[in-house]
């Protein structure tokens, strides 16, 4: 009973060893499944790192159009969720590891990486590529993906923030949501539309820790309440009366009429709730309008309304400004091919192609003026396209707050240290949202941490 199986096992072991050896030897080369087929001379493969959003998925599915127009260039995609894309790409560009030729990067990263020479300037490419129509880009969006006036990333989409709300639930509760609401109105409306018995929350706001999660929404509220992150001399202002009021407002609103277990919800959670009808309002990114409409229940779809980002006592326009752009890494060995891909996927022609193939509410919005002139797009997105454009144009990253600030950025602070500071503060805020600590405690801890951080980074003397 032992010999037969034993010998087979021995043979199997030897085979496995040989196979393993061959595999190990071969697997130390980063061989791609595409390359093996198209290994012809002159063929170039570019590696593209993307965030996993529907617009990018559409681009992936339409890649044959690019490859037809550019024979000899093959594209290999790496798709990651936003929170993981950032660290992965940052690691790559900072250590010049060279894993990516093209990377999707946020408007927060672009100026920092440009200054560090981690990405290549695109100004020359853009100027020579007249078909790409550089001047068609929306100015505010173009500005936030540039550094020193030079373009460093091609905007894939641009966005601001606004309010989503259910017209039917508002009507039932007897509230009217104006097109330019105040946070006071919204809080009152949330109280009226909150239906705990039915399991519908009055509002859904981001609570998940992360400088790009709960802090994004919260910072715009801070701004419009008259608060700010730092004063002119870089003293942190987290414990100032205006900032404290703003954060208290946000946390109290969330705890009283927001979604349950709010500290675990980022935009993903709220998007799910909005489209499933378990929340009456949602304050978040304009780019989700298409997604919500796509995945909403019929009841939600028929009753979805939009309004400008609510303002606070300081009456500052509070929509944020954001863009995901595509840049060329400094360690890329094929910058020209990389530009060809970038140019294709951010061009007006691509937008038309995606609209025809994938539907007009899933094209990348907010990047070009021409998009908003397309009759099909105007028709399909009548409910929110105008508001989106208005919100983008109203945002002012150079002066986002009531008092002057030494930094730029609406929903973040454009310094490299902000990821660290922001993540810490956002964790404390999540603690306040979940009831583990008071707002004052959270802000004091944030204040201390931020003070240490800007002192050791040299901003605060």
């Amino acid at each position, binding site marked *: 009973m*032992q010999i037969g199986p*034993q010998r087979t*096992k*021995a043979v199997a*072991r030897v085979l*496995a*060893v040989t*196979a*393993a050896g061959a*595999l*190990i030897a071969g*697997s*130390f*080369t*980063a*061989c*791609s*499944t595409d390359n093996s087929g198209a290994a012809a001379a002159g063929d170039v493969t570019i*590696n593209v*790192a993307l*965030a*996993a*959003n*529907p617009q*990018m998925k559409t681009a992936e599915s339409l890649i044959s159009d690019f490859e037809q127009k550019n024979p000899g260039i093959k594209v*290999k*995609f*790496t*798709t*990651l*969720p*936003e*929170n*993981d894309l950032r660290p*992965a790409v940052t*690691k790559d560009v900072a*250590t010049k*590891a*060279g*894993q990516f030729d093209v990377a999707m990067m946020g408007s927060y990263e672009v100026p920092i990486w440009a200054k560090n020479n981690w990405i290549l300037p695109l100004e020359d490419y853009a100027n020579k590529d007249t078909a790409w129509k550089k001047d068609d880009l929306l100015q505010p969006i173009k500005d936030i993906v540039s550094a020193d006036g030079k373009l460093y990333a091609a905007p894939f989409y641009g966005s601001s923030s606004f309010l989503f709300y259910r017209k039917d639930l508002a009507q039932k509760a007897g509230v009217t949501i104006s097109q330019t609401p105040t946070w006071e109105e919204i809080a009152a409306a949330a109280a009226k539309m909150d239906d705990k018995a039915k*399991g519908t929350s009055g509002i859904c706001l981001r609570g998940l820790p992360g400088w790009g999660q709960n802090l994004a929404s919260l910072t715009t509220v801070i701004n419009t309440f008259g608060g700010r992150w730092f004063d002119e001399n870089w003293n942190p202002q987290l414990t100032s009366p205006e900032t404290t009021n703003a954060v208290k407002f946000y946390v109290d609103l969330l705890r009283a009429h927001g979604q349950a277990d709010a500290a675990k919800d980022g*935009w*993903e959670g709220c*998007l*799910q709730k909005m*489209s*499933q009808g378990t929340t009456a309002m949602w304050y978040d990114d304009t*780019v*989700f309008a298409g*997604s919500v409409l796509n*995945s909403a*229940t019929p009841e939600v779809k028929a009753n979805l309304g939009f309004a400008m980002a609510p303002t606070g006592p300081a009456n500052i326009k509070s929509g944020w400004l954001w863009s995901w752009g595509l840049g060329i890494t400094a360690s890329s060995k094929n910058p020209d091919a990389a530009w060809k891909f970038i140019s294709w996927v951010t061009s007006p022609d691509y937008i038309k192609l995606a609209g025809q193939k994938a539907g007009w509410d899933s094209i990348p919005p907010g990047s070009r003026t021409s998009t908003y002139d397309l009759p099909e797009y105007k028709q399909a997105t009548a409910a929110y396209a105008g508001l989106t454009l208005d919100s983008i144009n109203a945002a002012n990253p150079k002066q986002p707050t009531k008092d002057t600030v030494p930094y730029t950025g609406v929903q973040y602070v454009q310094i490299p240290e902000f990821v660290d500071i922001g993540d810490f503060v956002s964790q404390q805020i999540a603690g306040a949202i979940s009831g583990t600590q008071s707002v004052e405690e959270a802000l004091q801890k944030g204040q201390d941490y931020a003070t240490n951080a800007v002192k050791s980074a040299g901003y605060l003397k």
Partner: protein
Amino acid sequence: MTATTTRRAAGVRAENHTPIRRRRPTKRLKNTLMGLGGWLGSLIFFLPVAYMLLKSFQTETDAAEAMPKLLFTPTLANYAGVFQAGFWPYAINSLIVVLASTAVVLILAVPAAYALSIRPVEKAQDSLFFFISTKMMPVAAAIIPVYVIASALGVLNTLGILIVMHIGMNLPLAIWMIRSFMQEIPEEIMEASAVDGATRWRAARSIILPLIRPGLASTALLCAVFSWNEYFFALNLTNSTSTLPLFMQKFLSFGELYTAHIAAAATIVSIPVVIAGWMAQKSLVRGLLFGAVK
């Protein structure tokens, strides 16, 4: 055996009702309760998996409902979605990494275990100690230099670096387990294998290896499971050429509902390991049991 004696005793002492009648139903009651308890416990543990399986066949809208829907129109769209999202390259990568790393782990561990049990070197305890201590150290402490070195060598985003890291991850456990199986081999056989130099290797192979086969199987299985599910190294050292745990992240999709898709993806990626685990559970138990059988 006790049942028959009780029955016989019952026949003998028929007049004396109470003790016997109370004894048998109590025992059966106890057995039934234990059986029920066993089933209850198992079902509680299996419930989340069953729920996951259920949700994987629902539409996203159905899946997003809190109430567990038992009546619904099943759909395979989620599974189709998973396969269309580029599942196969990742699956093949996972397979390669698991097979290669487990094979190498066994190849390195068996001789090492031998040298730590049957023909121990001096300071065998210290070596064993050293191996196990590497397993307890927070791997996060070493990841930065590993990243830097891998980047310098240009092996980031390859399967090779994952294979190497998985070998390091599983080797201490494998050495420890195989060593304990070897320790259970009766003295006389060990004496025989320790006789003279030339045939020692062959003696070891043909005598010792077959004896620890169940142990090798269960060790290989455990290593394979840990390697298949490994996330930390995959996350930090690779991106496009990567394994299934990283593929799962695609389902943290931007702007989309995902519960049913996650359920489908989770089911697919878990199937091989779960089936292997089911089939090998006897071997796993026997392997661990092997040490104690006289």
